[in-house]
């Protein structure tokens, strides 16, 4: 079957099977920053933004995304021009293996779009569904708060 959607600002039309989830199709199309994890919506590694809302792409059939806008980590920034949120994660050393980082960055982007001045409680709630097995959570929470300051400074 064929689904037409917007991915990182570009309109695409992808062929896929009815049973395929968005994670698989995104990765097959080269967007491998979306990680495979638990495949049950619990770990956050596959998070993308669907119409601006954070969702686990392992629970979204690719067909469900037809007609919607998807943002993956590739749409947030690049090695050459990282997004302030990505810089905040780097500077806070909130990354070790990096497997959970795309999901955390996208979750942070969704949070800051709704809540530009998050509290620590907001940051913790934002990362609640994102499991990290190496860095832990103290530095990612610091990174979320730092990202908010950077984004606000950038907006001024």
């Amino acid at each position, binding site marked *: 079957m064929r689904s037409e959607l917007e991915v990182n600002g570009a309109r695409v039309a992808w062929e896929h099977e009815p049973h395929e989830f968005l994670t698989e199709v995104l990765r097959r199309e080269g967007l491998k920053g979306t990680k495979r994890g638990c495949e*049950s919506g619990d770990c956050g590694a596959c998070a993308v933004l669907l119409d601006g809302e954070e969702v686990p792409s392992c629970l979204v059939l690719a067909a469900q995304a037809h007609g919607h806008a998807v943002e993956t980590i590739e749409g947030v920034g690049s090695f050459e021009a990282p997004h302030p949120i990505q810089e905040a994660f780097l500077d806070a050393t909130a990354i070790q293996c990096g497997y959970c980082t795309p999901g955390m960055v996208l979750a942070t982007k969704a949070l800051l779009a709704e809540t530009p001045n998050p509290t620590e409680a907001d940051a913790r709630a934002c990362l609640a569904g994102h499991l990290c097995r190496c860095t832990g959570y103290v530095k990612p929470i610091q990174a979320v708060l730092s990202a908010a300051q950077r984004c606000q400074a950038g907006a001024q």
Partner: protein
Amino acid sequence: MYLALERYTRPSSVAEALAAYAGGKGGVLLGGGSTLNVEGNHEEVEHVIDLQGLPWKQLASGAQGVEVGALVSLRALGRAAAAWGPRFAAIAPAALAYPVVGLLNRATVGGRVMLDRNDVDLHPVLAALDARLLVVDDAGERALPFPTDAAGRRALAGCLLRGLQLPAGGGRSSFHRHARIQVDRPLCNAAAWVEGSEARVFAGVQGPDAALTRLGAVEGKLSGWGDQRPPDWRGQVREAALADLVAYEDPWASGTYRQDVTATLVVRCLAEVFGEAVSE
């Protein structure tokens, strides 16, 4: 991955959805999809009917009460319910009980209501608030009471859930749950609504099927007391709750543990409703 899915349908009208569903024989209904790849019994699903094209996302509160569309996300419900006043105070903590933003964005009210299980945190709340389910089938639309037993669940077979209605009124409600960790299904939960001498108190996860347990002895105590509850009301409610609850044991909790914790949750719900400290 795990699905045998061969067909995906996205109806754009209720008539199309009813035709595709064919009274439950046509395929599996899909709200957000938060349980599609998780529930083991969906591995053999061959056809899903995605309801996202239907206009069932309303969230309206007014003099008649509250109407919630079946496709409203749990996150949207939890956020909206926080402003609906003390009668509906139990809704937000139940809707947001599993605090993973991505899942809360995908899980729908309709999907949760139709789950044939008794460990869904919204269920005792909707029962305590006397919710009505707005269902559609080939015979038209009608309202059904929120199902608290197997017979009520059977009445939903073959229907599409358009939304639910929560009647207006006074009083206050409360919800409490207990789980091994926060991001887990509850080992037990309880919800209560009280207004003067009227009360509705329900508990979940008290047996192997989807039935909820109504705590009639606790409601009787509250009805007898009205606004004049005795100083030792906690002890009396606890005793009544223990009489109402069976010691249901499963691999995750012993019967007496679950019974004891559920009684504690009921006391906590009522303390919150009465405006008292939840823990003594």
